[in-house]
C-alpha cells in the first residue's frame, strides 16, 4: 500500500517517484541542488501538521535551507501575517509553466532552478503539475513534501501518517540548519 498513489486510480506509467525512505534523502537533494525552489500551495494554510500549520513548516524550511519560496493561490497575505515575505507569488500553473522554460531567469534573474519542492496543493492538481514538470522540465528534479505518495514527482514520501510527516519535516529543517 505504501507505494500506491494516494488516489488509487492515478497511475502514471513507467516512470514513478522514488520513495523518500528517510528525511536525509531530501536534505542531500537540497544540499546538492544549485538552485532549489519551494512552491507552497493554499492547503499549507489550511492543513495542520501536529500542532502547527503546514505553512509554519514551509516558512522554517525556506529560512533554514535558504530556499526561495513561491506562494501559489491567495496565501501571500497569510504569509505576511506570519511575518514572512516569499520571493514570489503566482498561480500554481504559472510557476510550473516557468519551471519548464529553459530560458526563464528565475525569481531573482539568476537562472532556472534545478530542484522544485512542492507542498500544499490539492492532490489531483499537484499530480498534473508534477507531471508537466516531469515531462518538460529539463534538468529539473522535483520533490513532493506532502504526506501522500506523488508518483509524478522525482521523489516523494509514501502515504504516511501526520505524525511521521511532522517528524520527517522536523528532521529536514533541523539538518538544513546545521
Amino acid at each position, binding site marked *: 500500500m505504501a507505494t500506491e498513489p494516494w*488516489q488509487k*486510480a492515478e*497511475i*502514471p506509467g*513507467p516512470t514513478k517517484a522514488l520513495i523518500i525512505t528517510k528525511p536525509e534523502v531530501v536534505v542531500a537533494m537540497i544540499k546538492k541542488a544549485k538552485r532549489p525552489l519551494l512552491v507552497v500551495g*493554499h492547503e499549507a494554510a489550511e492543513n495542520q501538521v501536529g500542532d502547527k500549520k503546514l505553512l509554519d513548516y514551509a516558512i522554517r524550511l525556506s529560512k533554514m535551507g535558504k530556499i526561495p519560496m513561491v506562494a501559489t493561490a491567495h496565501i501571500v497575505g497569510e504569509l505576511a501575517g506570519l511575518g514572512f515575505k516569499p520571493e514570489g507569488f503566482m498561480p*500554481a*500553473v504559472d510557476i510550473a509553466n516557468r519551471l519548464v522554460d529553459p530560458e526563464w531567469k528565475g525569481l531573482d534573474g539568476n537562472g532556472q532552478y534545478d530542484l522544485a519542492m512542492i507542498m500544499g496543493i490539492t*492532490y489531483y492538481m499537484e499530480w498534473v503539475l508534477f507531471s508537466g514538470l516531469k*515531462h518538460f522540465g529539463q534538468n529539473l528534479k522535483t520533490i513532493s513534501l506532502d504526506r501522500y505518495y506523488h508518483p509524478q514527482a522525482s521523489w516523494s514520501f509514501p502515504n504516511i501518517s501526520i505524525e511521521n510527516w511532522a517528524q520527517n519535516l522536523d528532521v529536514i529543517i533541523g539538518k538544513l540548519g546545521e
Partner: protein
Amino acid sequence: MSRKNVQIKVKELKTNVATIKDLELSFGRLTTETWTEPTGPTPFPSITALREWDHKLLQRYKPFYMPYCDVCCLCTFGKCDLTAGKRGACGIDMSAQQSRIVLLACLIGASTHTAHARHMVEHLIEKYGHDSPIDIGGLSIEVEATILRLVCGVKPKTLGDLEEVLDYCENQVTNLLSSTHTGQEGNNIDFESKVFHAGMIDHVGLEVADIAQVATLGFPKADPEAPLVDLGYGTIDSQKPVILCIGHNVIPATGIIDYLKASGLHGEVEVCGLCCTAHDMTRYNPKAKIVGPISWQLRFIRSGLPDVIVLDEQCVRTDCLNEAQKIHTPVVVTSEKNCMGLPNRTNDPADEIVADLVEGKVAGVLILDPEKVGEVVARTAVKVAPNRKKFKVIPNVEDIVVGAKTCKKCDDCRRACPQDLHIMEAVADASTGNLDSLSSLYDICIGCGRCENACQMDLPLHSYIVKAGEKKLKEEQFKIRSGRGAIQDVEIRNVGSPIVLGEIPGVLAVVGCSNYPHGGKEVVDIIQEFANRKFIVVTSGCAAMTAAMYKNEEGKTLYEEYPGSFEAGGIVNVGSCVANAHIAGAAIKIANIFAKRNLRANYEEIADYIHNRVGAVGLAWGAYSQKAAAIGAGFWRLGVPVIVGPHGAKYRRMLLGRKDREEDWYVHDARTGDRVYVGPAPEHLFYAAETKEEAMVMIAKLCMRPNDTTRGRAIKLTHYIDLHKRLYGAMPEDIDLYVRNELDIPITMKDEIRKILEDKKWKENRIPDPTLLPRMIRKRKEEA
C-alpha cells in the same frame, strides 16, 4: 439561402424544335441570395483557413502540457513510453500526443453538439416544415445566428437553411478526427490549431441547436423577463406521479408535456428534469421543474420520487438503468446515442409497451418517436405511481448505524473520492449515531458514487450522505429565471460602448458542469461579487442552476435579486449548454452592432476585435466534460480567456501567457502601423485556478483589454486591486504592466500606485488602436 438537392420533373415539354417527355432535372444546390453584406475571406472555413490566426494566439499563449500518464495506448504499436522527450513507435512526442488528446476531447464535444443539433433540426423540420422561419427574438433581434453568419457566411431564414450548416460541421468534424489517426498530424501547435477549429465548429453546432428550438418550440425569445421557474427537490409534489427526464435533448420531454396537456393530465403529473434537458423543459413549459444539476442524479433517483425515468442524451449516468431498477422505476430511453441495451419498441403499439412497463416485464424500452414517448411515459407514470409508492433506497438512520459499524477503516472510500472527502471519519461518527459529519459532506459531494465502488464492505456510502443531508435536500426550493436565449440587439447597443471602452468592467460568463472543488456555494459567491461590481454576469448549463441554489436573507435567489437583462449588474441565464452560443454571440454582436464590423465570413477580424476590445471572460468552475472542453475551445479561437477550477487542470493543457516576456505583448496600432506594447491583457487564454479567491482576482484581471480607455482601465484596475488586496491581503505585483499612462491610475489609489510605479521605473505607454492583424493597419492601406 440555398436549397440542397432540388429536383424538377417535367412530364412533357413541347417546343418549336422538339417534344421532350419525362424530363428530370436535378440541382445539387440552388441559391437565392438576398443578404447584401459582402462575403468576407473565410466562408465555411477549412481546417487550415484560420491557421495563421490560431498561430498568432498560440505564439502568445503557449500550451503548457500536464499529461495524465506517460504512455500512448491508441494503437497496437503501443503502449509507448513518451516520458520526458521519448518518442513513440509512430514518432510522436509527448507535446503532440497531449494536444492530440485535447483535440479528441474537443471533437467528442463538437460531434455531440452537432449530432444533437442534427437530431433537433431533422425532427423540427419533420414537424414544422423546411420553411418554418427562424425567429429568435422578433423585432428585438435583427442580427440572429451571429455565429453562423461569422463562421459560415450564411444568414439562415428557415429551418431548412440549417441543414447545409450541419453538413459543413459534420464534414469538418470528420476531417479533424482523421487528423488524430496514427501517422497524421505530428506537430503540437497544428494540433492546437485544430483544437480551435473544433471549438469553432462546436459553437456552430450549439447555435444551430438552440435557434432551431427557440424558433419553433415557444421558448422565451431573448426575453430578459423570462419566467421565474421552480428548481429543487422540495418543489416537486411527491403526491403526484413524477416523470424525471435526464439529459440535454428536450424533444422527448416536449412529447411528454404535449401528451399530458392533450389528455388532460397536465397538472396531475409532475414533470421534472436534471441537467440541461431540465432547462429546456422550463423554456418549453414554465410549469416543468428543475431538480438540479448533473450531480443530483444519484441522490434524486435513490430518493424514490421518479415513477418513470426518461433518458435522452449527454451527461446521463450510464448506470441509470441499474439505479432505476433498485427503486422499481421503469426507464424509457429515447436517443439512438444512448440505447442502454434496451429493446427497440418504437414500432410497437403504445398499449403493449405501457403494459409491459407497468407489469415489470421489461426494465425499460427504447422509443425513438417523441410522440410515442409522450404517450407511453405519461400513461406508465400514472399507472406505476400507486404501485411504487415512491419506493426508495435511501437507508434509514438505524441501517446506517449498523452498516457503519462494519466499516473496516481501510480509507478506500476517501482515496476513491475525487474530492478527497473524509468519508471514513464521517462513517466512524455515524457508527455512534452521529450523522453530522456525513451531513457536512452533502454540500461538497459531486454525486459520482466512486466511494461505494471502492468500499470493501459494499456500504452504500453515497446514500448514507444523502440520508444525512436529507433535510437539506427536501428544503431545496428555489427560483431560477428560465433560459432567455439570445441577447437583444438593443441591449448590445446600450452596453457595447461601455464594454469596449472599459467602463463596464467586464462580462463574466459562468458556465459548465458541477464538478466543483468545494460545492456550489463558491459559484454563487463569485457571481454575486461580480454582479455587485456591475459586471454583466451571464450563466448557462449546470452552473446556471447552481447559481439559483442559495438564498439571501430575504429568501431570494440571485435570479430574484438581480435583473435578467444584459446590463451592468445583471445576471442573465441564457439557458442550456447549447444556449452558450448566445454568449459567444453577444461578444460577436458587439463587434457588429456597436463597431459596425462586417460579420459575414469575417472570423479573423471579429476575433481580433473581441480579443483586443471586449473584456469578457468565461468561468467553468466545475467543468468536467468533453463538451465543456469544446465550448471553451470555441472561446479560445475568439480570443476570450477561460478559467476553470482545479479539477480543470485535468484537461491536461493550459494556454498561458508570460507577462514577464515583454516581447509577447506587442500589437499593431491600426492607425499608424507602429508596434506598441500593451501589457499582458489578457494574460492567459486557458487557465486553472487553485482556489476561488485566485479565480476571482484573475477574473478581474483577465477583463483588461488593450483598447480600454483610461477611464475604463482605471475602473478595471480598481476592481483588480481591490479584490487582490481583500483576497490576497497584498497589492498586486504587476500593476506597472497595466498602467499605460497617469490617467489609468485609479484616483483613490494615486499615491500608493505612483510609488510602486516609481520603484519599478515604469514608463508611460500610448494607447493604440490595437490589432494583431497587419492587414488591419489603415495607414498602410492608404499608402497602398
